[in-house]
C-alpha cells in the first residue's frame, strides 16, 4: 500500500522519545507544589500540541495556554477592510499570502471581493509580486504584507528589489507585527486579571522561526524583568516535548532563564543581514491593533517615511476606512488570544462558528486555536 503524505507527518516523530520526555516531565513536575502555565506564542506550536495530543501526555500540574499565534488570526477587521477596499480599486491587483484571503472583514473577505470581480491573488513567495507587476504594467500591484519577524525580511527583500529594479507599479500595505511586544502586553494584561482568572502565564515556549531571523536575544527581558522563563523551540513534537521539559526543569531547579531548544538553526544573534534589511525599510508604529487584544504599543511595523511613495496606506489614504470596528459579540477570540479561555468555552464553537462558516478569525486560519481544536477534537 502506498504511503500517504499524512503518514510521513504522523510517523515522523519518534514515539519512544516523546514518551521518554513525558516521563521525565512527569517526574520533574511531581517535585513542584504548584501548577505551571506554559504559553506557546505561535500557532505552529498550538498545532503540534493539539495534533499529537500532547496535553494528554502532561501531568495535571502542567497546563498549556495558547497565545496569539497566527498573523492571520490577529489581523483586526480594520486592516482586512483596508485590503478589501484596495482590492476593489480600479486597476489594482491585490496580492497576499496564506489564509488571509478567507478572513471576513466588515464588507466581506478578499474572497468575496474576488467574486465581485476584484483581482486578488495569493502567492507562495512575496517575490512573485515582481513578476505580476512586470506582466501587468497598466495595473498597480499592491502587496498586502502580513507576518511576524519570520516573513518581515522577505517583504524587505521585495522592497529592496522594487527600488533597485525601478519597478514603477508595485506598492505595499504593511501589516508586519512583532512578538516580544505582544508577549509583554499579554503578561501585563493577564497580571491585571490574575485574581478573576486565577492563573497566569508562568513561562513561554518561543517560536523557532521567529528567532532564526531575530535571534533568541529578543526574549532576554522576559526572564530578567518579568521573571518568566522562555525556551525557544522547534515545531516537531519531540522539539516541543523537549522544550517543555527544559521549562519544567528550570522551575524544579529554581532557575529563570532564556534557553534554546532548537539549536539546529537558532542562535543568540539571528540573521544579522536580514535584521539590517528590516531596519533599513521599516520602523515601529506607536500602536498596532491586534484582533481581540486591542492596541499594543510598538508591536507593528510601517514603511519608513522615505519610502512613502511605495506605501499604499499613504497613497490610498483618502479611500481607506478609519472607523473602529467591534468584533462579533459572542466571539471570545480576544480571551483565547490572551490565553484566558479555551475554544470550547465559546458558546458558538462548532455550531454557529466552524471552519466552513467562521465567525472569528481564530476559526478562519488553520493555525488558529479554534480551528486546531475543531480539527483535532474529532469534530470533522
Amino acid at each position, binding site marked *: 500500500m*502506498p*504511503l*500517504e*503524505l499524512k*503518514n*510521513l*507527518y504522523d*510517523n*515522523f516523530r*519518534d514515539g519512544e522519545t516523546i514518551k521518554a520526555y513525558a516521563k521525565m516531565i512527569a517526574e520533574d513536575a511531581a517535585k513542584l507544589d504548584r501548577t505551571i502555565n506554559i504559553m506557546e506564542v505561535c*500557532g*505552529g506550536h498550538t*498545532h*503540534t500540541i493539539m*495534533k499529537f495530543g500532547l496535553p494528554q501526555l502532561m501531568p495535571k500540574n502542567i497546563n498549556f495556554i495558547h497565545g496569539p499565534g*497566527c*498573523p*492571520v488570526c490577529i489581523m483586526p477587521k480594520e486592516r482586512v477592510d483596508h485590503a478589501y477596499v484596495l482590492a476593489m480599486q480600479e486597476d489594482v491587483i491585490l496580492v497576499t*499570502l*496564506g*489564509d488571509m484571503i478567507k478572513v471576513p472583514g466588515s464588507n466581506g473577505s478578499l474572497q468575496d471581493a474576488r467574486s465581485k470581480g476584484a483581482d486578488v491573488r495569493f502567492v*507562495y*513567495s*512575496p*517575490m512573485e509580486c515582481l513578476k505580476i507587476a512586470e506582466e501587468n504594467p497598466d495595473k498597480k500591484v499592491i502587496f498586502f504584507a*502580513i*507576518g*511576524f519577524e*519570520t*516573513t518581515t*525580511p*522577505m517583504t524587505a*527583500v521585495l522592497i*529592496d*528589489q522594487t527600488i533597485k529594479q525601478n519597478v514603477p507599479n508595485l506598492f505595499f500595505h504593511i501589516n508586519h507585527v512583532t512578538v516580544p511586544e505582544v508577549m509583554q502586553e499579554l503578561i501585563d494584561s493577564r497580571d491585571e486579571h490574575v485574581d478573576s482568572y486565577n492563573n497566569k502565564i508562568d513561562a513561554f515556549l518561543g517560536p523557532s*522561526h521567529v528567532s*532564526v*531571523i531575530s535571534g533568541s536575544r529578543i526574549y532576554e527581558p522576559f526572564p530578567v524583568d518579568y521573571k518568566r522563563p522562555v525556551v525557544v523551540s*522547534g*515545531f*516537531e513534537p519531540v522539539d516541543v516535548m523537549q522544550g517543555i521539559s527544559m521549562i519544567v526543569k528550570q522551575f524544579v531547579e529554581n532557575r529563570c532563564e532564556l534557553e534554546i531548544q532548537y*539549536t*539546529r*538553526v537558532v542562535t543568540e544573534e*539571528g*540573521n*544579522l*543581514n*536580514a535584521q539590517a*534589511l528590516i531596519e533599513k525599510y521599516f520602523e515601529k508604529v506607536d500602536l498596532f491593533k491586534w484582533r481581540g487584544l486591542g492596541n499594543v504599543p510598538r508591536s507593528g511595523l510601517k514603511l519608513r517615511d522615505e519610502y512613502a511613495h511605495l506605501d499604499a496606506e499613504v497613497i490610498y489614504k483618502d479611500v481607506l476606512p478609519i472607523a473602529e470596528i467591534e468584533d462579533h459579540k459572542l466571539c471570545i477570540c480576544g480571551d483565547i488570544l490572551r490565553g484566558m479561555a479555551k475554544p470550547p468555552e465559546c458558546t458558538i464553537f462548532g455550531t454557529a462558528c466552524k471552519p466552513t462558516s467562521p465567525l472569528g478569525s481564530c476559526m478562519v*486560519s*488553520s*493555525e488558529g486555536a479554534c480551528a486546531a481544536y475543531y480539527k483535532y477534537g474529532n469534530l470533522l
Partner: protein
Amino acid sequence: MCLSIPSKVVRVAEDQTMCTVDTMGVQRDANLMMMADDEVKVGDYVLLHIGFVMNKIDEDEALASIETYREILELMDEDERKQAILEDDECPRRGL
C-alpha cells in the same frame, strides 16, 4: 506543518542572488537575498522558508536531523518522497 528539513547548497549563482539546494535528493532554487554576500557557500546546510534561505544550519545538527528524516522517507516511493519534501516548504501558512 513545518518539517524544516535541512537543505544542502549545491550551486550558488554568480551574482549571489539565487542558489540551488538539494533537500534529500530533491533539487530546487532558493532566494539568497536575505543572506550577506559570500555567506552561503556550496556545501553549506541551510533552512528554507517560502523560497528563501533563512539561515545556515550547523552541519552536525543538520546531518543528525537528516538521518531522522531519511528513515521515514525511505519507506516512500519516488513521487511521494518528492511531494513530501516540496510540501515541507510549501505550507500555505508558512512564514507567517
